[in-house]
């Protein structure tokens, strides 16, 4: 099983970054959020491996722990 790749892996980092920003161009905030969500689902399906996806979710979430509201913590603990 593979692990999440955290070393540079994009063929053209600057090009991809520009393409990602361009994809959002002209979209209102709501549509932008939908685009991001669609993109996440498309890429997740392409990756497929549960372990890699879990590592990616953890990495994305890690620095945001402090922003979690106490309410949300309580409700997620009760599940």
């Amino acid at each position, binding site marked *: 099983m593979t692990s999440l790749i955290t070393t540079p892996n994009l063929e053209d980092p600057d090009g991809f970054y520009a393409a990602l920003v361009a994809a959002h161009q002209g979209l209102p905030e709501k549509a932008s*959020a*939908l685009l991001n*969500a*669609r993109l*996440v*689902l*498309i890429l997740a*399906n392409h990756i497929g491996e549960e372990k890699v996806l879990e590592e990616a979710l953890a990495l994305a979430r890690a620095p945001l722990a402090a922003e979690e509201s106490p309410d949300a913590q309580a409700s997620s603990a*009760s*599940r």
Partner: protein
Amino acid sequence: MREPADGSGSLDVSAAKNFSRPYRRSKDQDTSRPARHRVVIVGGGPVGLSLAADLGVRGVPCVVVDGKAAFGEGSRGICYAKRTLEILDRLGVGERAVEKGVTWQLGKVFRKEELLYQFDLLPEAGHKMPAFVNLQQYYLEQYLYERCQELPAVDLRFQNRCTGVEVVSPELARIRLETPDGPYALEAEYLIACDGSRSLVRQALGLSFAGRVFEDRFLIADVKMPADYPAERWFWFDPPFNPGQSALLHKQPDDIWRIDLQLGWDADPVEERRPERVRPRLEAMLGKERPFELEWISIYTFQCRRLQSFVHGPVIFAGDAAHLVSPFGARGFNSGVQDTDNLAWKLAAILAGRAPAALLATYRIEREAAADENLRHSTRSTDFITPKSHASRVIRDAALSLAAETPFARALVNSGRLSTPTVYDTPLSTPDTASFGGTARLGGPLPDAPLVRPDGRPVWLLNLLGPGFTLLYDGAELPFAVPEGLHVVRIGRDALDEAGLFRERYDAQPGSAWLVRPDQHLCARFRAVEPHAIGAAMRRALGWELPR
């Protein structure tokens, strides 16, 4: 199985479907001391009646008490899954349910007016029972009631309302009852609570029913309407007739249609139940030109809850009294009847001295794991249908928008994952010592297969099983004697596998054998069977190897 959770109650508009359940005075009401029974079942709904019928066919005396005087508080539960139909068939009412019910296998999922995709439950050919049947709950209750009346071991007592329960000792419970002739009490070695989501037994024992309430309200309506829509499950996200919410349409017998409309948390449950309020909502969906009659209306809120333990000394919980799920996925009665399927043979074996009382611990192990599985599915479906946060809604909408375009996202769309039986990971199973392919799973219910009797008549595999343990053997003659009381079916002599589906589903080879529990779950299998191995597997499946 869809009780409103918020006390809003339901309104039976037609009140036409009441089958009466007559009150008969029992001699137990004339005794000075409470009469003692081996098994008392509290609750004469479909779960309680299934348990009574199951105990009744095993000859175990049981008393069923229920406060109601008639069936028919609307359709309530309507979807019966294949495994449920197989259990009902074992109890003698499965064929009746299929004959009256609407068999369906196609589901369609819409977003706004667009068909996102459709799914076919694709029932494999060569099973007696179809994938799903829709039938009003009151029909099933009537069939089970009539079946119980044929069984001398079952003592049905309606208008016997439970008013209190006490655990007297680890081996004895006492129950107080109110009848038209006044109160009386009974004692029971085992008291089985099948008294639904608002279980009085659960409250009397002061047990907490932990879980989640989903902040949303649904209108459920059954309408009578001659219509030529196909027998399919139609589910809408954000339909034009109920913007921003969901909707479900399902066919029942007698031109009755089940409609489920999401209303949102702000909806007033009392107001929304009024027919003059319901009618325009339904007209928006069905069209004004199509006349319909309202049969039943209810407003409900989803809950996902379960008791921490299903067994409390002599008191055992089954069905909605033990666990509660949202209706999407049809896991209410379908899991309740699997509880009683699991419990009945164990109680029968314990009461006959063929199994230790410790066998009941496996009711907990097997059915609590099943409840967790059902709760997990139900919670996930509910989170998809009613997203709890802005982010959750965006992700849901992204999945819906992709589903129309690409096949992968259809797997993410969750309008209810339909009930499938649980494969038990249980100490009652003897671990496999050889590998088996096919679809039969150790701990799972047996897959059915079409066979032929030696005289040429067709017969279903599941209909060949005995009421107790059964040994399936691939061969004309077992080379040794089997333990007493074990029913043997020889594939190749008692029945022939002409279609080859038994071989395929069980990965059968000459000399292989399968040991089947009384609830039709597979508990051991052997490539080359030795006499002592069958006895040992049976002892194990009866709980003799469990810690006491």
